[in-house]
């Protein structure tokens, strides 16, 4: 890649930034661990999208039924 290329400069900017981190390494570790727990554990196993598998029409029918019937 040509060194004067703007994309290369942006790449170097981020690369050097990440390399020179000190406290940032700890913070990134916290962020990644948190995102892993949230998306790979909580989202996957505990938070199914209740209406996610339905088509828009089925979803409307389902909610209409919910709104017009007692539990």
């Amino acid at each position, binding site marked *: 890649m040509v060194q004067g290329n703007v994309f290369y400069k942006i790449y170097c900017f981020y690369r050097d*930034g990440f390399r020179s981190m000190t406290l940032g390494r700890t913070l990134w570790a916290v962020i990644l661990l948190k995102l892993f727990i949230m998306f790979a554990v909580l989202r996957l196993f505990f938070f199914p*999208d*209740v*209406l996610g598998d339905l088509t828009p029409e089925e979803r409307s029918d389902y*909610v*209409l039924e919910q709104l017009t019937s007692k539990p």
Partner: protein
Amino acid sequence: MMLSTADWMSVVDWSRAQFAMTAIYHWLFVPLTLGLGFIVAIMETIYYTTKDEFWKRTTKFWMKLFGVNFAIGVATGIILEFEFGTNWSNYSHFVGDIFGAPLAIEGIMAFFLESTFIAVMFFGWNKVSKGFHLTATWLTAVGASLSALWILVANAWMQYPVGMTFNVETARNEMTSFWEVLFSPVAMNKFFHTVTSSYMLAAVFVVGISAWFLLKGREQLMARRSMMVASIFGLVFALVAAATGDGSGVQIARTQPMKLAAMEALYHGQKGAPLTVISVLKPEKERMTQEKAGWMNIEIPRMLSLMSYRDGDAYVAGINDLVEGNPERGLLSVEEKIERGRVAIGELARYRQAKQGNDREVMREVLAKFDPKSSEGKTFHKEYFRYFGYGYLSSPEEVIPNVPLVYYSFRVMVGAGVFFILSFLFTLWLLKKQQIETRRWWLWVLLWSIPLAYVASQAGWIVAEVGRQPWTIQDLLPTVAAVSRIDSASVVVTFFLFVVLFTTLLIAEIMIMRRQVKIGPEPLLSDPEQSNDKTNRDE
């Protein structure tokens, strides 16, 4: 899924508890990010204009604390979106694109903000020019507040639903005016009140940490100057927060009178209603029947009427008026609203049955009633659909929120706000007199004001959210109809998982933050020319 009424109430209660807990923890991180971003930007602006290395060092120190708070808090709000899809699926569908659009804008803005400007803020000190770096710092601060705007617009719509129509065929609300949603008076007041009170919290944080440095006899110059910047910043925005809070009171009186009555524990409506500064609330039965709801009342005559309606003689409705109705004042009873709500729900059920039986004539008939453009639709909306949510209530008393919680939370919020205004003024006076370091007791007060600011901030949300119970969407959808019919056991499990996750994050934040404060700012370079730092050079 078939649930008994007891199971359903359990799902409602646990889902509410989980949402409240998640929102409370999320809000522990957000206000500091909103305010500290601007304080850091102001400090960097001073560095930019004075070229004094001291200010660069000071900026970098507070920026480091901003980074810790941002990193620990980022994405904690996403869990709220998980909860919408799982625990509140009826609500999520019912609100349609009105809630989705602002949240999508917020998500896109947050992504660009986090991946670009914050990167320049932290990685750019040795890479970009002073001006570009300063611009990135300001854009980070402005972007964070704009990001909050969309969330608060979505929240305000739930408190005051405007700019939409209900589509019977899809069972969703559809946005008819984006600008009406964005610029609703409730949204604007909520946005400015929330962000300015967050700026005040950040100022209390900076002043408190600076007080700690003075107590330890370290970094005195940095502490004094940071205190000066934060006190001026905090004072300005505390006054704006007071003004916008007053504006919120006017909005609440018109759009959520029950919340106002709960905030004041006003059971019997009256003309020229006084504002209760403080009192000890009586038990519920006595509050409802006796003239005064509390003991040891300290009141300001006519002030509640004046603040709510800008008229000292105006009538302010009490809880009893709102529940039982007051024909003289044009107030319908909740019993009547429940009946009307049930008519609207009945029409919806009729549409569903007609749809199942392919009875097109009945479908057309019902659709006409829900059409806001037709005269029949306008009448139906005014007489019945506006009370739609009441149809789900079992008894009129369900519209009364937890009065003591709202009443005391309101006083904690306002009391702390007044204290912070006086605190900033006194701190500035001590700084001017060069006596701040000798008043050690005051430095301790400033340090311990930090948790008070967080308590006040959370109390504000309790007033806003508990005060509007039982509604997820004011008058249209109560929590009992908004919740998904899921097993309460799974909600209980995730509730405690979140308690563990968020408490761990909070402990991590406090530990990392404490360590970074103890380390203090980086040593000052004696010769900036020796540094390979573009931001040290003039452009």
